[in-house]
C-alpha cells in the first residue's frame, strides 16, 4: 500500500471506537466484492456491514419459481434462465430438479441468446425468466424490441423485475436502524445517482454511490462513517455514474415497461417496487401477473437475512443443514447472496 491517504482511512476504519454504526449494501455485487476483498476483517467491530435485498435471485418469490417449473414441464415449452436461478427451491423443488424430471430448462448467458434459439426452433415456445433490477431491465427491453422486429411469436418473458427506491423505503421503515447506505453502482449507472440523492434527503440517511474495487469500497465506508447521523449524498463512482443516468437505456425501458407492484421474498407486496410489460406488449408476457405467493423452507430465515434483521449466522440452518451444496434458502444459492458470501469467505 503506497497511498498515504488510503492508509489513513484503513487505520481509522480499524480503530474506530465511537457508537456502533450499521451500514447496508443493497447490491449483491457489492456483497460479493466486500467478501472477496476481505473488507469485514479490516473494520472495527463497531462498524457493521449488513447485506440488503439486492440479490435478484434471493428476492424472487416462490410463485415465480413454481410457474417457471410448470412451464418447463409443459409440452413444446423451454424455460431459459441465468445460472443462479436454476437451483432456487420453489414449493416442490428447483428448476434443476424439474430438469432432471424431464423439464425443458436451459441456462443462457445473455437474454439475447434466446432470440437465436427462438429463430432456430420455431416449434418451441421459449420463456425467459426475466428477473433482475434496474440494471437488467434494459436488456429485456432490447430482447422484446428484437422479438417484435423479427415478428417472433415463440418468445415470451416471465417477469419478476424489481426497482430499488421503494424497497429501500420499506427496509428503512420496517427493519430500521440503518446509519447509511452503500448505494448500488450498477443500478445508479442506469438510473442516475440522482434517485439516491433524493432518497437521502427524504429519509435523512446518507447514501454514497460506490464502485466495486476494494479501495473504493473502503473510501465509501469511510465517507458513510463521517456522514452517519448527518445524512447527505456522495457519488464516488463518477467514472460510471452520472446524476441523470443512461438516458437511452431509460428510454428503452419506458417504451416497453411500466411501474408495477411487486412481491418480494419475506417482505410481501411492495407497491410501485417493480416493472411489468405495458398492456400493449402483453403478448410477450408468459403469465407474470398475480405471482405473489411465497413460502420459505422450514426453518429458513432468508426473509430476515434479506432485510438485515438478522445476520446469516443467526439462522439455525446456516452452515449446518444449509450450505452451498445443499442450499435451503435462496440467499445460499446465489453467488451474490449474503448467506453464500458469509459461508464461502468465512465472514
Amino acid at each position: 500500500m503506497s497511498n498515504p491517504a488510503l492508509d489513513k482511512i484503513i487505520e481509522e476504519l480499524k480503530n474506530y471506537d465511537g457508537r456502533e454504526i450499521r451500514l447496508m449494501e443493497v447490491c449483491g455485487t457489492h456483497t460479493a466484492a466486500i467478501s472477496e476483498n476481505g473488507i469485514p476483517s479490516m473494520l472495527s467491530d463497531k462498524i457493521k456491514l449488513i447485506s440488503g435485498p439486492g440479490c435478484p435471485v434471493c428476492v424472487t418469490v416462490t410463485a415465480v419459481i413454481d410457474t417457471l417449473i410448470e412451464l418447463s414441464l409443459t409440452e413444446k415449452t423451454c424455460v431459459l434462465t441465468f445460472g443462479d436461478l436454476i437451483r432456487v427451491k420453489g414449493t416442490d423443488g428447483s428448476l434443476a430438479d424439474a430438469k432432471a424430471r424431464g423439464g425443458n430448462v436451459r441456462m443462457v448467458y445473455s437474454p439475447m441468446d434466446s432470440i437465436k434459439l427462438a429463430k432456430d426452433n420455431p416449434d418451441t415456445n421459449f420463456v425467459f425468466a426475466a428477473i433482475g433490477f434496474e440494471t437488467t431491465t434494459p436488456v429485456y427491453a432490447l430482447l422484446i424490441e428484437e422479438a417484435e422486429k423479427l415478428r417472433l411469436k415463440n418468445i415470451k418473458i416471465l417477469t419478476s423485475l424489481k426497482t430499488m427506491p421503494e424497497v429501500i423505503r420499506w427496509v428503512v421503515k420496517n427493519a430500521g436502524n440503518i446509519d447509511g447506505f452503500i448505494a448500488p453502482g450498477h443500478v445508479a449507472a442506469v438510473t442516475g445517482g440522482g434517485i439516491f440523492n433524493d432518497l437521502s434527503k427524504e429519509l435523512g440517511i446518507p447514501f454514497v454511490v460506490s464502485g466495486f474495487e476494494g479501495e473504493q469500497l473502503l473510501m465509501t465506508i469511510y465517507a458513510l462513517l463521517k456522514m452517519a447521523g448527518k445524512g447527505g449524498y456522495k457519488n464516488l463512482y463518477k467514472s460510471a455514474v452520472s446524476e441523470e443516468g443512461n438516458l437511452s437505456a431509460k428510454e428503452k425501458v419506458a417504451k416497453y415497461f411500466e411501474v408495477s407492484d411487486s412481491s418480494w421474498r419475506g417482505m410481501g407486496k411492495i407497491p410501485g417496487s417493480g416493472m411489468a410489460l405495458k398492456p400493449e406488449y402483453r403478448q410477450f408476457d408468459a403469465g407474470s401477473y398475480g405471482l405473489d405467493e411465497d413460502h420459505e423452507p422450514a426453518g429458513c430465515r432468508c426473509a430476515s437475512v434479506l432485510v438485515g434483521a438478522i445476520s446469516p449466522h443467526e439462522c439455525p440452518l446456516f452452515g449446518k443443514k444449509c450450505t452451498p451444496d445443499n442450499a435451503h434458502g435462496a440467499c445460499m444459492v446465489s453467488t451474490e447472496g449474503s448467506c453464500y458470501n458469509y459461508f464461502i469467505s468465512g465472514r
Partner: protein
Amino acid sequence: MKITMAHGSGGESTSRLIEEVFSKYFNNEYLSELSDSAVVPGAGRLAITTDSFVVTPVIFPGGDIGRLSVCGTVNDLLMSGAVPKYITCGCILEEGLDMEILDKVIASMAETAREAGVVVVTGDTKVVEKHSDVSGLIINTSGVGFIPEGIDAPGPSHLEDGDKIIVSGNLGDHHAAILGTRMGIENDIISDNAPLVEMTRKLMDNGLRVHAMRDVTRGGLGTVLNEFASASKCQIELSETDIPVSPSVKDFCGILGLNPIYMGNEGKMVISVHKDDAEKALLLIKESKYGENATVIGEVKKGKESADNINVIVRTKIGGKRVVGPMYGEGLPRIC
C-alpha cells in the same frame, strides 16, 4: 469419411479402423501384439490410475481431447512420485464422427505420449449411436508408473509448519479457453494442457523435500489447498497478489464473474515444499518446460494458534483477509 456403427462391430471395419488410425500412431512392440492384454516388464512399487475425458469441443485452442487424455493420466502418476511408463487408450466413438477429427486427435495423443515418455500399450474402441449433446468422442486412459527406490511419495497429509506453497504457472487458462470457445468469445487464451514430467522429475531427482504435490485440475487451487490443509491439520496463508493469472484470463474472469482460484487447469501443479528447499524448487520448476511462470504464493502455518482453524486464508490486495473454501456446487460447466 464418417464413423459408422460398423466401425464398432468387432469385424473387418473395426480392424481397419485400428490399423489405419490407432496402430499407425501408437506403433510399438507391446501394442503390435494386439493381444488381450499387454505384457510389459516392470517391478517394485507401481502407481496405477485411470481417467475418462469428455470435452466439448474435442479440439480447442491450444490442445485437443487426445493430448488432454495423456496429460491428465500422466500428471496423476507424476503427482504420486512415479515415473509414468505405460498408458491405455479406450475410445468411445459416436456414429457420424469425422474420421479426420479422430485422426487428428489420435496423432496428437501419440505425440503427447512421446513427449511424456509413455507408451500406449493397449486399447479398445466402441462405437455408439449418435446422441445429440455428446461431443462425438470420449477417451479413457489408464496409466502405470514406477516409483523409484528411496522416493517418499508426497501426500496431502505431509505438510509441515513453514512449508512454502508454489504453483507452477498461471491459473485458469484451460477453463477459460474451453468456456470462451463454447461461448464464442474471441480472445488469445489457449489451454495449458501439458505433461509435467520435466519439473516433477527435477524436484524428485534433486531430493528436494516436497511434502505434497497435486495437479490443479477441476475444483481449482482452492479445492486442492483445502484438501492439503484439512489432511495435514494446518492453516495455509496465501497472498492474493502473488497468485499468477494472465491478464487475458483476469479480464475474462472479470466479465463472467469467475474466480481463477476455482478454475480448472490441465498443466499446472501446486507443491508444498520445505522452506529451506523452496528457492531451489522454484528455480527448478522455472527452468522446466511449462514452468516459466511458477511463483511462491503462500506458506503453511501449523501450530497451536492454527489448531482450531484448519483452513486456507488469503490476504487480499487491499490488506484484508478472507477464507478460501473448497469449490461448492457444480461451479462451472464441465470442461474435462
